[in-house]
């Protein structure tokens, strides 16, 4: 008997939207099932339905057999007994999932006291043990959630989930919004605990690569249905459904020339659950849809050994592995069809001039457009604490028409650096030059400067004023700078450049009427309208679905080609650099530790930090090097190399054998030049000419 057996589950919210429309899923004890899909496809609804946590008024049909007992048929008392003791949940974003006014120890102890016959002292001891099990000191039980970092809070959530020894853990986007390194730590922790305690895991994520890495089986959801299911690796590498193909294709595979300068997305948005298209729900976005797809609904059917898919192309697929026709590589089916999706054709591989241009540039380097020299930005410590050196000596050049990715974990100073380059934060020392002239911090000069250098922020819902129409949001920059020309024409032009066509149809819309991708396009249009020379984009796609992500990155690439726009893209995502950047700069604790062309740095990293970052990507080959802990505090930068405390090369004794261990502990590596040449701020890398990452680490 399966541990979890979901049969024909249907969920309809009180407003009539059908979030889940007939899902069958089963999971053996100890099995690991991944559920993937874009936001709005019903995967979180499914998770909440498993423990009947949906709001009152929601209609739920079908059966959810947990250990053979139907959760939907249970009395409420029984449901409460099963919650957490039978199955527990690790929610996304542990900041909000923990109660801010209770100590984390008490929150872990709470279900123990509720479900087990435990004394308060016993529960407290157990909470301490659980914290140690997830790699936190037991003393953290006395901390409040806000005193912990994002990764630590997620560990607390996991400790809490383990509290009553459930047989099933449901993890809903457990690593979304965490840094790459922390994500790797948490995934490793979950995988280890699940294996060790023989738990079953249902993991929900929009990130197919994470699921493929962690789970045995993978189910892809679209519009409230499972459209594909099978062994996780196979589904990720060789999907039998055009939607699965598009989702897995949206993940950049670093080192794969096919995705270099070719971010892939999926035009359009998932359907509104209140108005699901007829026939196959995916047909409006499907690149290989047939005429009949708008009429004939597709059900899951066999698609190879242990695999099922719901696609009209599948009967043939069962015979030959790749029978789902590849979408034609037609790069441009003409400017956007003007649909709501603002479907921007994703360009094929960029003209080869771009790819080679990046490499060719350092040789005949034109003067940089924007340049930072010896830039320092410090913040005074709170209550007389130590000064935080957020940016601690950075040289960085950006040439016209160049896209540079600034990569690092949160807290490494990348956002501070970007703000300082924009003139939002005056540097403590060093200087910024634009077009050969040092930045003038008088308010008039800054205004002129900001007309030429525009900012795009991470969260388009937060950076757009909800009471401004799209037109006002885009025209605001023009008004601030007292634009003399035809405002309407300029706004329309910027919107269509950003892929919102026909622009007039968007003028009177409000941000809440747009999808996440469309909102980010509005933000970009607002930046473009002033015809800047340079865009500084701070995590421009971090809050977007993978499918939308590719679309926005393609837009940035196209803008570079069409307008010769330069961009500095601040990100924690190395794949993004592979997708669109010419050069990459890896930042750690206020300093750039490695820089060079994307091909060089990402294919043959020389700094152990870059190597570690690359090795923990879910899709990376070889053994992952998970660095312990979190980036240290910029108010306590250690002497010597700032990375030495976490450096795997130093820890393994390799640096000692190469005779540089002393230097690592005492000498700060030199500040890297801002130009394009490949450099690494590492004593060890300087001694060895080899750049084989696996050799360096093992």
């Amino acid at each position: 008997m399966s541990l979890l057996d979901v049969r024909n589950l249907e969920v309809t919210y009180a407003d009539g939207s059908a979030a889940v429309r007939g899902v069958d899923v089963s999971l053996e004890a100890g099995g690991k099932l991944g559920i993937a899909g874009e936001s709005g496809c019903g995967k979180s609804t499914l998770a909440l339905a498993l423990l009947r946590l949906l709001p009152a008024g929601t209609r739920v049909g079908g059966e959810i057999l947990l250990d053979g007992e139907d959760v939907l048929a249970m009395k409420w008392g029984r449901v409460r007994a099963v919650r957490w003791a039978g199955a527990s949940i690790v929610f996304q974003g542990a900041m909000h999932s923990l109660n801010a006014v209770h100590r984390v120890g008490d929150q872990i102890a709470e279900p123990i006291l509720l479900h087990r016959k435990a004394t308060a002292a016993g529960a407290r001891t157990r909470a301490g043990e659980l914290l140690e099990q997830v790699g936190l000191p037991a003393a953290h039980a006395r901390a409040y959630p806000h005193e912990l970092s994002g990764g630590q809070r997620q560990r607390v959530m996991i400790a809490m989930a383990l509290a009553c020894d459930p047989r099933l853990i449901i993890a809903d986007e457990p690593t979304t919004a965490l840094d790459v390194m922390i994500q790797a730590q948490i995934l490793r922790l979950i995988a280890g605990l699940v294996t060790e305690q023989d738990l079953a895991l249902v993991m929900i994520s929009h990130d197919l690569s994470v699921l493929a890495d962690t789970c045995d089986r993978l189910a892809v959801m679209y519009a409230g249905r499972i459209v594909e299911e099978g062994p996780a690796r196979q589904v990720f590498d060789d999907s039998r459904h055009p939607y699965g193909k598009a989702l897995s294709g949206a993940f950049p595979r670093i080192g794969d020339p096919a995705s270099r300068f070719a971010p892939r997305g999926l035009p359009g948005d998932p359907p509104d659950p209140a108005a699901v298209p007829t026939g196959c729900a995916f047909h409006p976005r499907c690149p290989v849809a047939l005429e009949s797809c708008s009429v004939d609904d597709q059900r899951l059917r066999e698609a190879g050994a242990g695999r099922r898919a719901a696609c009209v192309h599948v009967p043939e697929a069962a015979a030959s592995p790749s029978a789902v026709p590849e979408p034609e590589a037609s790069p441009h089916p003409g400017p956007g069809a003007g649909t709501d999706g603002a479907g921007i054709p994703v360009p094929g591989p960029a003209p080869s001039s771009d790819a080679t241009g990046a490499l060719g540039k350092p040789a005949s380097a034109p003067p940089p457009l924007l340049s930072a020299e010896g830039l320092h930005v410090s913040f005074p410590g709170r209550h007389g604490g130590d000064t935080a050196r957020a940016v601690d000596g950075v040289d960085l050049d950006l040439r016209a028409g160049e896209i540079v990715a600034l990569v690092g974990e949160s807290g490494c100073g990348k956002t501070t650096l970007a703000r300082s380059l924009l003139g939002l934060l005056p540097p403590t020392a060093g200087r910024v030059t634009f077009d050969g002239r040092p930045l003038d911090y008088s308010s008039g000069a800054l205004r002129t400067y900001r007309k030429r250098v525009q900012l795009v922020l991470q969260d388009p819902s937060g950076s757009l004023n909800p009471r401004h129409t799209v037109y006002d949001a885009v025209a605001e920059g023009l008004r601030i700078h007292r634009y003399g020309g035809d405002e309407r024409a300029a706004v329309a032009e910027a919107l269509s450049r950003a892929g919102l066509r026909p622009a007039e149809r968007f003028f009177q819309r409000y941000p809440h009427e747009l999808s996440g991708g469309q909102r980010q396009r509005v933000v970009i249009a607002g930046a473009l309208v002033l015809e800047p020379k340079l865009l500084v984009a701070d995590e421009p796609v971090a809050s977007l679905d993978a499918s939308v992500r590719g679309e926005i990155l393609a837009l940035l690439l196209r803008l570079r080609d069409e307008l010769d726009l330069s961009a500095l893209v601040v990100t924690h995502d190395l794949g993004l650099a592979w997708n669109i950047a010419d050069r990459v700069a890896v930042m750690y604790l206020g300093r750039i530790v490695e820089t060079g062309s994307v091909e060089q740095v990402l294919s043959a990293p020389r700094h152990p930090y870059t190597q570690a970052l690359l090795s923990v990507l879910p899709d990376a080959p070889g053994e992952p090097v998970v660095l312990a802990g979190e980036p240290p505090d910029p108010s306590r930068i250690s002497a010597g190399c700032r990375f030495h405390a976490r450096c795997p090369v130093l820890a393994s004794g390799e640096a000692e054998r190469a005779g540089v261990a002393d230097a690592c502990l005492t000498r700060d590596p030199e500040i890297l030049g801002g130009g394009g040449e490949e450099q690494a701020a590492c004593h060890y890398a300087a001694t060895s000419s080899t750049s084989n990452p696996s050799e360096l680490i093992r």
Partner: protein
Amino acid sequence: MSSVQQAVVPAPAAAAPRRTAKGWAYLRYGAGKVGGAVISLLAVLVTGFFLFRLIPGDPVKTMTGGRPVSAGQLAAYRREFGLDLPMWQQFTDYCGKALTGDLGTSYQFRAPVLDKIAEALPNTLLLTGTAFVLYTALGIVLGTRAAWRHDRLGDRLSTGLALTLYSVPSFWLGLLLIIVFSVGVGPIPGLFPTGGMESGGEEGFAYVLDVAHHLVLPVITLVAVEYGQTLLVTRSALLDEMASDYLTTARAKGLRDDLVRRRHAVPNALLPTVTLIFVNLGRTVAGVILVETVFSWPGLGGLFYQALSVPDLPLVQGLFFVFATAVIVMNTLADLVYPLLDPRVGR
């Protein structure tokens, strides 16, 4: 296990709570708040003096109103009250006395202002304190209920009634209650006294009952007018919290619905209400001028009304200072208590 533990060596205990550091931070925070309050009080002292001198009317003429008085007598009164001195000298006298705890002598009662205030203060506290406890409790309980079952009929009725009463002028409601329940309308006999605090002549327990009898109508008036604010603030704060993920976590743990509410939702939702409670507590001392006047309650509000009509400058200034002090002290207390309730604030 070992593999897992190795992989996840804990971060350097950066976030480990540091008790003493926190204690110091709180002391520094508290000292700042108290310092700010002292400065506000000094500002009130100064404002009070000049503010009431802008009131039209001559206190000496009002007090001697109707009686034949000679210019010499008026001058004598002026000299007695210090009104013949130049303004700056009156001001320095007032400040100097105030700093030694002397708020001057009332013109009309010929008694120290402090004595008059001390006499009326307990009466006011009895009335408004009783009302405060009732309307705060009522507001929180009904507000929590309304939010937890929001948009149902019960919520609509309860919130609607609260809003209506909240917008009713207190003196009008008081007069209405007097007409219906004191004077009596049609078949309804007058059940409660029309005003005052006691009938006189009662002793011991009978006295207590008599005062309680007098309390009923003014307290009802106050509670009816005031509970709506607490209800609305509590309701909207709880509604904000109800969408929070940590409540889903609490439900997923298997807690009963009322435990989710009591243990998780309400403590978070009450945080904004705490500030309101302290502000109301401050206003408690200020009394309620309109209600005390309507019910002839011998409290600070009634006293203020009498003092204003003269204007009895020392008494008005003194009362103003006491009212302001109460509000400032309570606000400062709210600032001091808040970080103890919400661990995120005050560092």
